[in-house]
């Protein structure tokens, strides 16, 4: 079974705000696959550009909202792809990231990529449903 998970708050619906042709998340086979999470205001969808630290806090906050609305949580993450704009920020990412995955952190890969709208971070994750 494949089930589309709706955005818990209007700002997290990137299809509505930015025309991205994607569902916020899809549940299938006991897992939840999330679309690339970006630092947008969860209420309004406005882009929240900032430092990697501030952007990461917004992204992880959005991810928490999305997963919890789907009956999962940050503790149930199994795999994370962290895309950052520059590998020099790796330690900065970790400082924020570890605050959100204190208990048995998920498998993770970090790499550098070009992220839309000049954002500094995007998280691509799979969680246990």
């Amino acid at each position, binding site marked *: *079974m*494949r089930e*589309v998970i709706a955005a818990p708050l209007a700002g997290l619906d990137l*299809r509505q705000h930015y*025309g*991205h*042709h*994607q*569902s*916020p*998340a*899809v549940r*299938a*086979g*006991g897992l939840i*696959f*999330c*679309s*690339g999470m970006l630092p947008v205001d969860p209420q309004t969808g406005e882009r929240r550009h900032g430092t990697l630290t501030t952007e990461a806090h917004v992204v992880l906050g959005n991810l928490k909202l999305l997963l919890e609305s789907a009956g999962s949580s940050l503790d149930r993450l199994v795999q994370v*792809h962290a*895309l950052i704009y520059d590998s020099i920020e790796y330690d900065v990412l970790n400082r924020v990231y570890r605050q959100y995955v204190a208990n048995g952190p998920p498998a993770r890969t970090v790499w550098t*990529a*070009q*992220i*839309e709208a000049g954002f500094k971070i*995007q998280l*691509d994750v*799979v969680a246990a449903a």
Partner: protein
Amino acid sequence: MRAKREVIPLPVRAPDTASGSGQPLSMAVRGGDFLFVSGLTAVDLKSGERMQGTTASETRQILTNLKQLLDAAGSSLDKVVKVNVLLHSMLEERNMNEVYARFFPDQPPARTVCGARLPDGVKVIVECTALA
């Protein structure tokens, strides 16, 4: 009990590398409930030749091939749960997105799009996970 892992034999061949040798990958592998599809580039499925074009035309070719590939594997575009799209430039995101939308009319899969350095002048790579 061990979960099943199965390479799906498909009438689709990975394009040859620049050196002329085949690539060490399977186009699709079933593991558990899922079908994992390798990153696809724009190729002609019959000849295996690369079809270099615009971001839009490469996206169209890739998704046409993906549909055929998933159908041959007993899955379908409707069963895709997650797509990763790699673009040679994020300035092309809109060009990709417009074509992409036509292939997933309703309830589109979760998706991540990013810009990356792609090999051999390729403009788009699409990889996906589907329910088997």
